[in-house]
């Protein structure tokens, strides 16, 4: 046996017997590095005759392949063993809390505004807005509410000046006026927003939310009004059938005027909407008064249509079982968390309004 062969056997046995990754690295250097065994053998080739060279080179290469294979198997065996041993020691208590996260919430009023917008979007209404501070003309006069009329008593108004010319709007109806004055018919809009009345008790807050609706075109009549609101109420409460009645009423800005009641009953202290023999008022509506159209530069001979006003907070309370109107504005952390909506829960037509 040549020295070369002896050396190869020695390397093989060294590799086979070790279980230590450092030792393996040492052996690797001894064999394969620049100054290692194999290179030193290759260097010898130069001093050999052509025939010897050929045989020896082939021997070295053969030995190199063998050693490489043994080395690869050994190295992966040892590194696997090291890894498993390391893993064995790694153990965390996965029941410890995750990193803290906070889920934000959308206020029920905002959610309901989005729901309502979604419903009316489907039948071609677009969203308009108006300022919270209004003048007396847009809030009352243009809407056919005469000076010193008891109808004004229905709105306990917050005024911003002693002459009672600027005020916080008592309803969203002035948006009707603004919309009509700045554009040309037809009009088909809804206008959600904050409204204000100086009233504060169990069921009233000085600020609340309304949604105005206005549809003016050539031949829009009370049949359209009924159809529109029937559709809205059914969609909003996400039911196929709902008991509903239109009851004549009076608003200065509509004629004829109606209030809409929906049927309900109380079952185990919970309100069940849409059936039963009790009535709950949910909105006011009517055909826009010709005087309002005239005030808004729309010719009542050619155009007519309907308007409605919905109490958004009230609808939110009914749909989501919230008992106290005042709680909407008290910002109680627990309330916001409980009644709020996930921001990803955007009402859409294809997915449905609510989760």
């Amino acid at each position, binding site marked *: 046996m040549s020295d070369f062969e002896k050396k190869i056997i020695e390397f093989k046995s060294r590799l086979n017997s070790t279980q230590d990754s450092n030792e393996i690295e040492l052996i690797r250097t001894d064999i394969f590095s620049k100054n290692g065994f194999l290179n030193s053998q290759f260097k010898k080739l130069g001093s050999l005759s052509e025939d010897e060279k050929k045989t020896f080179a082939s021997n070295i290469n053969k030995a190199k392949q063998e050693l490489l294979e043994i080395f690869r198997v050994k190295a992966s065996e040892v590194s696997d063993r090291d890894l498993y041993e390391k893993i064995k020691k790694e153990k965390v208590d996965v029941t410890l809390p995750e990193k803290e996260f906070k889920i934000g919430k959308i206020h029920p009023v905002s959610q309901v505004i989005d729901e309502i917008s979604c419903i009316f979007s489907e039948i071609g209404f677009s969203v308009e807005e108006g300022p919270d501070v209004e003048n007396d003309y847009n809030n009352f006069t243009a809407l056919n509410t005469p000076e010193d009329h008891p109808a004004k*008593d229905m709105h306990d108004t917050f005024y911003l000046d002693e002459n009672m010319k600027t005020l916080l709007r008592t309803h969203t109806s002035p948006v009707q006026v603004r919309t009509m004055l700045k554009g040309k018919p037809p009009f088909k809009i809804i206008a959600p927003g904050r409204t204000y009345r100086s009233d504060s008790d169990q069921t009233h807050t000085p600020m609340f939310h309304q949604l105005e609706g206005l549809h003016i075109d050539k031949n829009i009549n009370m049949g359209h009004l*009924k159809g529109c609101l029937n559709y809205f109420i059914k969609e909003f409460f996400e039911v196929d059938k709902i008991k509903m*009645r239109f009851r004549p009423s009076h608003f200065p800005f509509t004629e004829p005027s109606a209030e809409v009641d929906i049927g309900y009953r109380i079952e185990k202290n919970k309100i069940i909407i849409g059936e039963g023999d009790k009535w709950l008022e949910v909105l006011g509506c009517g055909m826009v008064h010709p005087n309002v159209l005239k005030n808004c530069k729309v010719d009542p001979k050619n155009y007519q249509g309907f308007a409605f006003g919905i109490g958004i907070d009230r609808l939110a309370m009914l749909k989501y079982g919230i008992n106290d109107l005042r709680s909407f504005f008290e910002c109680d952390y627990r309330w916001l968390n409980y009644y709020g909506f996930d921001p990803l829960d955007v009402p859409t037509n294809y997915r449905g309004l609510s989760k």
Partner: protein
Amino acid sequence: MKFTKDWLDVHLKTNKSESQIIQKLNSIGLEVEKVEPIKNELSDFIVAKIIKANKHPNADRLKLCDVDIGKKDTLKVVCGAPNARDGLLTIYAPPGSVIPKNGMKLEVSKIRGETSYGMLCSESELKLSNESEGIIDLNDKYKTKIGKSFFGEKKGKNVIELSITPNRPDCLGVRGIARDLSASNFGKLKELRKSKVKKNIKHNLKIKIEKNKNQPCSIFGSCIIKNIKNTESPGWLKNRILALGLRPISAVVDITNYVMFDLNRPLHAYDLDKIKNKITVRNSKKGESFKALDNKNYTLDKEMCVISDDEGVLGLGGVIGGERSSTETHTKNILLESAYFDPSIIRKTAKKLDLNSDAKFRFERGVDPQSVTTGLDSAIELILEICGGEVSKFDVQQTKKFKDLEIKFDPKMVLKTVGTNININEIKKILSNLGFTVKTKGKFLNVKVPSWRPDIFGEIDLVEEVIRIIGFEKIRSIEPEKKRTKPTLNYFQKHFHLAQRSVASKGYLETITWSFTDEKINNKFKEKLESVKIVNPISSDLSVLRNSLYPNLIFYLEKNLNRGFGDQALFEIGPTFTGKKPGQQITVVCGIKKQSIDEDNNLKKNDLIDVFHIKKDLVQSLTELEIRKEDFKVVENTPSYYHPGISGSIVSKDGNLVLGHFGALHPKIISNTFGFEIFLENLVEYKAKNKKFKESLTFSDYQKSDRDFAFLVNKDTRAQDLTEVIQNIDKNLIKEIKIFDVYEGENIPSGKKSIALKVTIQSDHKTLDENDLTNISKKIVSTVEEKTGAKLRS
């Protein structure tokens, strides 16, 4: 407006039941608010038991009793009766009830320092006997009746209460309600009884309406009734008065009230013998005063309508009578007034004096001017029947003629408005039954409006009358068309919606707070804005419109802290006000964050929030709103409510538009709290101006190289100043700059700091070689050193 079915029967011949009538009233626009069992004078008096008769702490003869009246809790009642004792069954009168013996109305009162809720009654007080020694001692039989009315309630009879809309004064009288029902095929309206009273005696009191400016009184009708006996009203009349929720006083007063509620015709009775010489209806002089029937003194402004005699003001016309000329039980001769006053002036007067009365409520809505004599006739009929006496001829002073309005009505308007065809004969019948005079003229109807309907002005009002009586349920509903011609939300509204949900998705709870706030807190946030004061605020701590969203958010944040919630993130999106004119408002998104400091929680220690957390929330939301980092810059000047050293503003690249602020709130306002504001109009304006179309995506596959630099700069140099300079050196090659260390301390001269940054360099066209990279690196160093005074650290 209250009435009973039997009262309605006076005017309406009908076979419909009470419940049918209630349903009908609702469907024709006379909303039924309440139906309640009728109360008689005595139903208030309740069987009660003294649980404990304690000694009154401040009076020897009085007792402080715990009384069981059948409710959950017992009541405290002070009682002076010697027989008040533990376990006694007796009769209890609650506050608000009227003691039959003396007509005294009970109130909650303090007796020798102890509050007494009502009274325990003696037999004489209830007019059961003359026994006034001690309170009633009921036998054991009443043990099961505690809480029940002693005299029993009349079963089956109800008071129906309507909520009459302000346009329908005619239905503030029972007859008006009957008329509407008859028009709805619910019976026949009975004719008013013709007066058979002989008016024999002379009306010898001179009455004059003066021609003053804006004199609201245009008709003053009256008659004199002599030698009456003003007794107690008979039972039927008393019961009607009680049904109205009023208190029977005397026949004359009860009759005038009865006619008012029966015909919507207010009347007033004067004691004739107390009137000095003559009656003048005139405008008041400033400073005149009188004592009204409510026992209060009123000092008048000028131009209020007064009824006066030679001695001064007798009463305020159409609003309230005066005490000086009031009728009493011994009154023998009266003057009965039936007048007409202009609604708007009555309203102004009553509002100025803060005075409310049933008469004022009717006159300001509109009383039938043609009902002056009908009202007198109705009243004298009753007065003569109950009190006897002789009546004079009527004296009617009138300064203005009232003409019934005529409307040319195209019946096609009904179809046009409601979409459902109504037969012309039906239309005519409904209008006639409501009291309109209808004549056909070709295709049109000539419709004369009855004098009791001041709410009818034009054709549309007639359409309303017709459809209201027909019933809204008869209108055919038309399904809405599912067609959209315009986008639902405009550009701004889309951003509102997105901003709201973007901020919420960062863990903030959306709140909605009042648009007004506490002026004291608001002052800390208003900066240069004017306070917008509310003239009549709901409370003194909600007296200004908010100039910022912070005052309310902080208020509620602190409330939640007190509830024990330390970690909080709240936000609101809504208006803040920049002035008091319509439109002087902007839309702000404001978030506020507070973290509780929990020393024991090691797990959380590395997660403490600082200004860069709030900046992250803001910048991430801006990014989601497609305002990218290269679109804005950060500047240090912020409003004074932020911590001056730990806050910044996000402004447009040109510095002209403020998009938002962020930072620690000023510690003097609130400690350890961070917040941000986004100004939505500015943001949307900026975005709209710099609208970029999304180009098709290209990216470079050539080698990317990173080079690190550390610059020694002055302590007050801002990181942004370095990155801006580097960015501008070659926008094509420099893809990203990341600051990875800011260091002061050892090896750094005082007044200096080291900023270390990593610049990513990549070409879109070739692989950069060592030479290219060296060149750009050198350029970065030289430009930064030249423009910022920084020195590369070696």
